[in-house]
């Protein structure tokens, strides 16, 4: 028992930290998330698929005159601040984008910030938008507010063009895993429906590959294998993610993996992604919101 005496100071420190953690938040970080989450990914998935607005192959957006259209994508807005979001929405309103995707971390997770985001989008967004949760949206027990204000975080929608349709799949990776139920749902959806669509684009929050070293984490490697293998087997055209805050692009076989810049206020590299979809493929370009 001598070594227990030797490590007594360390044990006391550990117990003190453990006792403080449940009460802990530093700024916009909910430290309790190191130990537990109030809404795990399987629970969020179940609530998403049972949500009244979820899951139909009815086209959500129609580009009837042509087989080409544009859409945009943003991520990591972290409202609180709405300055960069406002700049982006001005661009979206003045352009030809049919809709935009929001790849997670819409807010800090605090209910009041989610409400700011919701009200701002209601008053400024002139085209439909399709969000998913990020890890920050789940802080401070944020999931009930997210699903109340923004709807489900696992769903799909389609864009119907003149002669063809494209499939957009939105996945909840706020916990850096799809979880068993969502992973099975994704696999079955692709198995049943992929061949009915021209392009398939997946939007989720947590980036798969570490193009640079950061302290934020990604899915475990066997989940990466699963996702990469699905991309190979079902010819996924593009996977759009956020989380890393700095854009990067990787081409792997048929699939383009894109990480968005954060749209966070005050961020030097804040940008949005504009994508042009046509019979020739999917072209894309990053546009800075900073002058």
């Amino acid at each position, binding site marked *: 028992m001598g070594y227990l005496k030797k490590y007594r100071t360390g044990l006391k420190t550990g117990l003190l930290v453990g006792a403080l953690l449940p009460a802990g938040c530093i700024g916009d970080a909910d430290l309790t998330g190191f130990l537990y989450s109030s809404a795990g990914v399987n629970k969020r998935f179940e609530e998403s698929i049972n949500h009244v607005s979820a899951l139909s192959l009815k086209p959500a957006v129609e580009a009837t005159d042509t087989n080409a259209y544009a859409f945009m994508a943003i991520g990591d807005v972290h409202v609180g601040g709405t300055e960069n979001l406002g700049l982006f929405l001005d661009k979206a309103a003045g352009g030809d984008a049919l809709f935009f995707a929001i790849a997670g971390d819409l807010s800090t997770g605090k209910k009041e910030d989610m409400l700011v985001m919701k009200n701002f989008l209601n008053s400024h967004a002139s085209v439909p938008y399709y969000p998913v949760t990020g890890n920050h949206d789940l802080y401070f027990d944020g999931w009930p507010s997210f699903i109340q204000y923004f709807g489900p975080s696992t769903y799909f929608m389609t864009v119907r063009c003149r002669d063809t349709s494209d499939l957009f799949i939105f996945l909840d990776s706020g916990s850096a*895993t799809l979880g068993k139920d969502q992973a099975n749902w994704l696999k079955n959806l692709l198995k049943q429906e992929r061949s009915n669509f021209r392009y398939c684009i997946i939007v989720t929050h947590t980036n798969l590959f570490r193009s640079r070293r950061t302290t934020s984490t990604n899915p475990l490697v066997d989940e990466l294998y699963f996702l990469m293998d699905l991309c190979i087997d079902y010819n996924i055209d593009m996977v759009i993610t956020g989380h890393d805050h700095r854009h990067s692009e990787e081409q792997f076989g048929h699939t383009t993996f894109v990480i968005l810049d954060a749209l966070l206020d005050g961020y030097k590299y804040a940008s949005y992604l504009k994508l042009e979809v046509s019979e020739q493929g999917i072209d894309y370009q990053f546009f800075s919101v900073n002058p």
Partner: protein
Amino acid sequence: MTLFGQPAVSGYAEIGNSPVLGTFGTFAMIPEYKVHGLAVETGISLLGSGQKETLLDAVMLRGSYAFSVKQNPLGLALGYIWKQPSTELRETNIYLSVDYGLKHWYFLLGNNFRTYRLSGNYREEQGFSREDSRIRESWNLMYRVSFSVNAPQKSWNLITTITNVDYFLIEQETNPLFNLRGLYKPRQDLVLFMEAWYKTSGMLNIQVNHYGFQFRFGVTWDI
């Protein structure tokens, strides 16, 4: 000079569960040859799961050199792991590591360089360029910190570990794994061990979620 070395072999079987593999079973064999502080080990792992296309999971090769520093072993290692997650997908890791063992503590630090790539056959079949058939990640930190109840000489031990490294797997540096290992030496040349692994996702995103677990049973025999 006469070479006088010690061959050994480790083998284990494990059963586990993860969201993407479901319930899976693994079997591995790791022969090793040690002489004068130098060691070479190689290994093969087979993984059976209803969700996995291939039975062969991974092979590895590791060379190491251990010497004494302040009467404790310091080891340097160079290793290579090749994995086959599916019929088209491959992953390779090359790593360098240093480890140091104390009476109750063990530390490992290293760096690995990970590449995902498409198999040669699939790449040629589909007409993809080499550039579009591989993803090289930024270098990754490897670590292991273990605490043992007993000193290594004892016939039994209980060891708790936090690490991102296993025999045939290196996780991202931001995904730590937790391990509890019990071992028993019925005689000097034989070690029986049992391990329980627990995995979480999202911990360093401050949004932790249960991920998976596995139970491993194995033996190491100095032949």
